[in-house]
């Protein structure tokens, strides 16, 4: 034990990693000694534990490890009896040693920035910077390195975390030597995210824009690679192509975005390693299906300070549950055999790393997987598992020496060896001086007991029975002790050294009066055994994961539809049969199976609903909704954003889905906003509450795209600074359309010409560039995608129809269409439908002539009319909005109901399977207490695909359960606070309710 070295003093002689190419100042100081660590418990790798084994290293590499290994003569041997050796930990998500990302705070209202501001032969978008090469900006940061080494880390992957394509990351050791020696791999991985970071360029202004930008970048890079005579030189595309062979890491901020990233990867043949956010447990099955490896943070949320009941209201159920379940996330990944690495990145306080890791283990993560996720897995993800992460012959001598099992609560990390160089963390040659002593000084004898940690002992001093506060410090074998004995004037200050066997501490010191004296403390008895609090290991009790992870989520994901027989309802069919009184509707396998009188169940487990006195209608379809969307609803930064897709950013966890179900809505077209003439592609979903975004989509729905006209697209109400983007007038709007349709046709021609070339000719030319924007617009020309166009005044409505006719297609739907009544005859002739508000007007100049009779006039003139919401509040009262058509214009009730059922289904080309109660159609029905258009009608049940997604009775029970679950979590959090844990202030996260003209500044915050 005692011959151990004072490592810091020997530091220089460990410098074995000479910089070969550098001139030497002084004499060459090469050290090729062997170092051996014997009698230790060694984890050769995460699963191989050897007792009484030895590790031999030289020149920063492992020479051998195991039992009975022979030691060359020039070996310095350390006896590690009772101690442990582990491969040092690896963190593959950090920005260690990288300069901070510049942060510009932009004014809220500013002029548009359509182009990049950074100069050079880069790509067009400032957020795509694959040319970023972290190794070029990497510098050793001794302070940060020490902090990480203290935790046991020996190497990290480091990158500039800025932008969507973030370039390459370097893999570096955490030593204090020169950068040349510390970099293990200059380009170890390529990094991506959905965040545009410090880019001030307007595009992308939404998550869907970021996704489109990544997709287009893949295509551009492919095109660039294939181009024979490159029409441009492009540093970014060049770099993009060059880094494709590296491991590709994609940072996301929740599980939904993990799936989004994986989908992009699937499209372009890339399997990303996904840096997740710790909420993967919420949809572990989908996470598993990505086949991705994950990098998972350990920054579990602190409990909320919820002692005040009103404050507690600010914390959502989802946040409370996440607090409880986050530590179980690693265990959940392990249980599902998902390979992952852990990262300390994101921990506000790095000291919490071990606390949180132990918590994760307490919550079910096995120690083996914990170790694997910090050693072997990160190395393997970078393809470096033969160099680092284990202690095998030839591998890097990166290891830590610990007092006990790494995961033990009392474990101490003594040393962290980085590439064969030791870094002392905790002295290990410490004498245990804890015990009771007789201290004699200046003729008085005190009782001294030394307690506390072995490295940080504390003194308790008494004279007779009087306690005297004392201060003890220890540095290896030097001890100093000071105390203020009230019976002696002034402070007594002593210093001395430790003698062992038996322990005596002696030396000299000064009394308060300045006299020098000798002193001595003689060991009398051992210290009181440390009070071991009987750790009551309460069995871990965790709440359920719910689907969706939100209030009114259920404990099970929606399963298969049950067969349901609805008896004796008044059935509003929205078919030519009209209203069928006292009729039964039989739902089977998610379809409407039979309609008739006195139907009986055909098997045992058919759920029978007695609907006597109730009305059954087709489920409501909202033609125009912006609920359930993540990361912004507008990519309005350019006149056209045809390339963006709402389908990429559906948010299955939005409470407004459930609220809409509570209003009888079963499906919605989720539309891009109206900030530009050509918006984005729609997501058409059924409100399958509890399913994933992909599962919510109606697979057979045709493609739709949002167009917009009027004040929003010409930015009339955006202030005087926003006057640059074309168009600013209705005249310009027309030209945007004509231009894009012209270019789309030319684009198609270009491809046709190319595709028709014989193979031999094809080989000689470069293929045209695939352009997601023009491709989408070309689909409109080819009648494969349909337009829903936000519109107000008659001139512009007429204009778009004329443009469409010129390009030989039809505008499918005008939405809002508040002056549709003025051109209903033209719409009818053109074949456009109208999806309108019932009675909105007067909120801006272009709706000053909007009238609530609009729906009625268009309908009477023969236009297919729908009533839509554009608003999640009104979206759950669409039946009432349709009811207003009875009032304004005298539409018969049965017809008015069609405005929210079969008509929107027709406008969405879904009427073959939705929108009415007809045998063979989807079992999407709603039971009401009253005539469906009445203000008094309340929803009893909303059934989608034969599954009851909303049930008024169940909903009340769920509300009670939510209250119970919150109460449980609140008392658990209060308990946590009492234990002295840090708590966070409750802050209510408000939801941004999107409508057509919602613009968010930082879409990453709006997920």
């Amino acid at each position, binding site marked *: 034990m005692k011959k151990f070295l004072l490592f810091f003093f020997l530091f220089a002689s460990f410098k074995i990693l000479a910089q070969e190419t550098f001139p030497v100042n002084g004499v060459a100081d090469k050290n090729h000694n062997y170092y051996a660590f014997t009698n230790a418990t060694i984890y050769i790798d995460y699963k191989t534990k050897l007792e009484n084994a030895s590790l031999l290293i030289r020149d920063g590499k492992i020479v051998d490890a195991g039992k009975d290994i022979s030691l060359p003569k020039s070996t310095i041997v350390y006896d590690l009896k009772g101690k442990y050796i582990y491969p040092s930990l690896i963190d593959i998500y950090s920005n260690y040693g990288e300069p901070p990302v510049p942060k510009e705070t932009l004014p809220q209202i500013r002029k548009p920035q359509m182009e990049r501001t950074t100069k050079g032969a880069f790509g067009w978008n400032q957020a795509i910077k694959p040319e970023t090469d972290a190794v070029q900006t990497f510098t050793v940061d001794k302070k940060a390195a020490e902090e990480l080494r203290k935790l046991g880390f020996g190497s990290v992957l480091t990158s500039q975390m800025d932008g969507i394509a973030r370039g390459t990351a370097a893999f570096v050791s955490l030593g204090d030597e020169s950068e040349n020696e510390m970099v293990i791999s200059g380009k170890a991985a390529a990094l991506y995210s959905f965040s545009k970071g410090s880019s001030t360029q307007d595009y992308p202004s939404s998550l869907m824009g970021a996704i489109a930008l990544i997709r287009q970048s893949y295509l551009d890079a492919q095109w660039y690679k294939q181009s024979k005579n490159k029409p441009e030189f492009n540093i970014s595309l060049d770099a993009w192509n060059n880094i494709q062979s590296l491991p590709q890491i994609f940072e996301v901020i929740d599980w939904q975005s993990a799936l989004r990233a994986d989908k992009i990867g699937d499209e372009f043949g890339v399997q990303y390693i996904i840096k997740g956010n710790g909420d993967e447990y919420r949809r572990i099955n989908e996470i598993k299906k990505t086949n991705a490896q994950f990098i998972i943070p350990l920054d579990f949320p602190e409990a909320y300070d919820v002692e005040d009941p*009103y404050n507690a209201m*600010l914390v*959502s159920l*989802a946040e409370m549950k996440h607090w409880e379940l986050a530590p179980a996330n690693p265990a959940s990944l392990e249980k599902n055999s998902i390979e992952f690495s852990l990262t300390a990145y994101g921990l506000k306080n790095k000291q919490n790393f071990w606390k949180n890791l132990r918590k994760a283990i307490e919550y079910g993560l096995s120690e083996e997987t914990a170790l694997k996720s910090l050693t072997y897995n990160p190395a393997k993800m970078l393809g470096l598992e033969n160099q680092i992460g284990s202690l095998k012959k030839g591998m890097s001598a990166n290891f830590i020496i610990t007092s006990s099992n790494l995961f033990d609560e009392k474990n101490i990390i003594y040393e962290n060896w980085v590439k064969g160089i030791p870094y002392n963390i905790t002295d290990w040659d410490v004498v245990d001086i804890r015990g009771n002593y007789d201290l004699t000084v200046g003729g008085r004898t005190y009782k001294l007991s030394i307690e506390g940690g072995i490295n940080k002992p504390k003194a308790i001093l008494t004279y007779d029975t009087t306690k005297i506060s004392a201060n003890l410090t220890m540095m290896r074998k030097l001890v100093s002790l000071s105390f203020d004995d009230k019976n002696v004037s002034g402070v007594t200050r002593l210093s001395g050294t430790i003698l062992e066997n038996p322990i005596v501490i002696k030396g000299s010191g000064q009394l308060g009066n300045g006299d020098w004296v000798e002193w001595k403390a003689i060991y009398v008895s051992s210290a009181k055994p440390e009070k071991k609090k009987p750790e009551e290991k309460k069995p871990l009790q965790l709440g359920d994961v719910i689907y969706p992870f*939100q*209030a*009114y989520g259920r404990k099970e994901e929606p399963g298969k539809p049950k067969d349901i027989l609805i008896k004796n309802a008044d059935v509003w069919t929205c078919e030519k049969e009209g209203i069928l009184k006292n009729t039964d509707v039989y739902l089977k396998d998610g379809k409407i199976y039979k309609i008739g009188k006195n139907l009986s169940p055909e098997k045992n487990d058919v759920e029978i609903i007695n609907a006597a006195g109730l009305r059954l209608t087709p489920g409501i379809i909202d033609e125009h909704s912006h609920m359930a969307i993540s990361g*912004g609803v507008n990519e309005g930064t350019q006149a056209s954003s045809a390339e963006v897709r709402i389908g990429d950013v559906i948010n299955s966890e939005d*409470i*407004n889905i*459930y*609220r809409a179900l*509570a209003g009888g809505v079963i499906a919605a077209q989720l539309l891009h906003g109206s900030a530009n003439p050509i918006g984005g592609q729609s997501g058409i979903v059924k409100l399958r509450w509890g399913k994933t975004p992909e599962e919510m989509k109606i697979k057979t729905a045709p493609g739709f795209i949002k167009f917009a006209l009027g*004040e929003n697209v010409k930015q009339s*109400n955006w202030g005087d600074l926003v006057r640059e983007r074309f168009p600013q007038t209705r005249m310009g709007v027309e030209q945007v359309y004509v231009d894009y349709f012209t270019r789309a046709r030319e684009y198609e021609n270009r491809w046709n010409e190319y595709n028709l070339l014989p193979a031999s000719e094809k080989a000689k030319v470069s293929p045209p560039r695939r352009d997601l924007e023009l491709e989408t617009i070309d689909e409109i020309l080819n009648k494969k995608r349909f337009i829903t166009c936000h519109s107000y005044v008659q001139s512009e409505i007429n204009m778009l129809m004329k443009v469409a006719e010129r390009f030989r297609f039809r505008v499918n739907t005008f939405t809002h269409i508040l002056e549709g*009544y003025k051109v*209903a*005859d033209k719409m009818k002739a053109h074949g456009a439908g109208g999806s309108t508000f019932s*009675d909105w007007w*007067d*909120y*801006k*100049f272009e709706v000053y*002539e909007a009238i*609530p*009779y609009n729906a*009625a*006039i268009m309908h*009477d*003139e023969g236009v297919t009319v729908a009533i839509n919401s554009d608003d*999640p*509040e009104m979206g759950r009262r669409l039946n*009432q909005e349709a*009811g*207003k058509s*009875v*009032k*304004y*214009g*005298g539409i*018969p*009730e049965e017809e008015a109901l069609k405005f929210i059922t079969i008509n929107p289904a027709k406008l969405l080309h879904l009427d073959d399977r939705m929108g009415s109660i007809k045998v063979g159609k989807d079992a999407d029905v709603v039971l009401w207490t009253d*005539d469906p*258009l*009445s*203000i*008094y009608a*309340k929803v009893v049940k909303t059934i989608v695909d034969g599954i009851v997604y909303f049930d008024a009775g169940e909903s009340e029970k769920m*509300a009670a359960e939510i*209250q119970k679950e919150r109460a449980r979590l609140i008392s658990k959090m209060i308990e946590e606070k009492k234990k002295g844990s840090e708590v966070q202030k409750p*802050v*209510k*996260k*408000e*939801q941004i309710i999107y409508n057509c003209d919602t613009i*968010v*500044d*930082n879409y990453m*915050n*709006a997920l």
Partner: protein
Amino acid sequence: MKTIKITLIILLSLSVQKVYSQKPVPAPAETESILLVGGTAHIGNGTVIENSYIGFDKGKIILAADADKGKVDRSKFAKVIDVKGKQIYPGFILPNTTLGLVEIEAVRATQDFAEVGSLNPNVRSLIAYDTDSKVIPTVRDNGVLIAQVAPLSGIISGSSSIFNLDGWNWEDAILKADDGIHLNWQNITVLTGRFTGKPELKKNEKYDEYVNTVKKFLADAKAYSEEKEHKEKNLKFEAMSGLFDGTKNLYIHEDNVREIQEAVNIAKEAGVKKIVLVGGADAWMITDFLKENNIPVLVKRDHSLPPYPESDVYLPYKLPYLLVKAGLLVGLDMSGNMEAMNGRNLPFLAGTAAAYGLSKEEALKTITSNTAKILGIEGRAGTLEAGKDATLFVSDGDALDMKTNHVEMAFIQGKSLDLRNEQKELYHRYMHKYGLE
């Protein structure tokens, strides 16, 4: 359908007479007494007379009787109208609205509801109320015949006044001038990050300062009001003085539970006599407190989303019921998005309250008699009782339900209203164009 057509014919004949104008002409002074016979009268105090006589003369209701319980001498009335099968209601009252203070929300030149400065009790909606707003006739058309027009913005946004929704000018239309002062309470938490896409409620660092400002202003105004004559007048304090002798209401606009309690405590301590809570989304949590302090509530638009994801999905719909059940005096308020235009949907807020807990007649009170009591005009409006203004209308069906709300005739202080509006004109114009009429 039939009744609609009949209505249309009446309307068309009207419009033939007055083709020169799209705007309805303010009703001429009432010259004759009228008796409505046979209608179902919703008195507005909870009672219904299935087969009623409603008679009025010189602008006042003089008779509200059950026809099944005794005959009335019809000859005493200059005009007898058979309204059998139809519904009669007192004119609905729309409180706390910017109707008439704004024409088009997004057009700045038409906005007259927010004055510069934070303490503006002396600023009066009274003289800015535009009787010629195109919006007013569309609101009236659904049975809303009285509105309390209030400014917004700042701490004290100004003084509201109550108008009959008919008249050549604001002087004509006044029902009650300067009825109350509107105090917008601030929240302990403040919404940040709305534009960065990360909206969060964070601690409002200015809240204490705000509270002190209000306290001091109330104390100063009270002290000022103790003295009758002032050599140098303070217009702001003058405007406030009615709060301390009970001639004006203090409308406290607030939704949150803690702030409501604080605001009421402070106003009471300052000596404010009559307090009305406007908004009150959280009021259901402190009904005892409100009752003990005798605070009526103008409940914010029940057509709202619940405040929390965890809230009962129908909580806003149920809110009027929860407060009425607890014994509070409750009226309904439409303020919020597009509030001027949405004034016409006030009846349906009551319809929703009826669907979710209240009886239909109780729900009706929340837009008639209750609101009248809260606004201090119960002697003039809110019920079909003798002595009140003859401000009432006849609907073909249940006026709280959109599918049956068809106002066929309406009277303000006995004057028969011209129910045309520009929206109807446009409707007919285009029905005519398409040959659909």
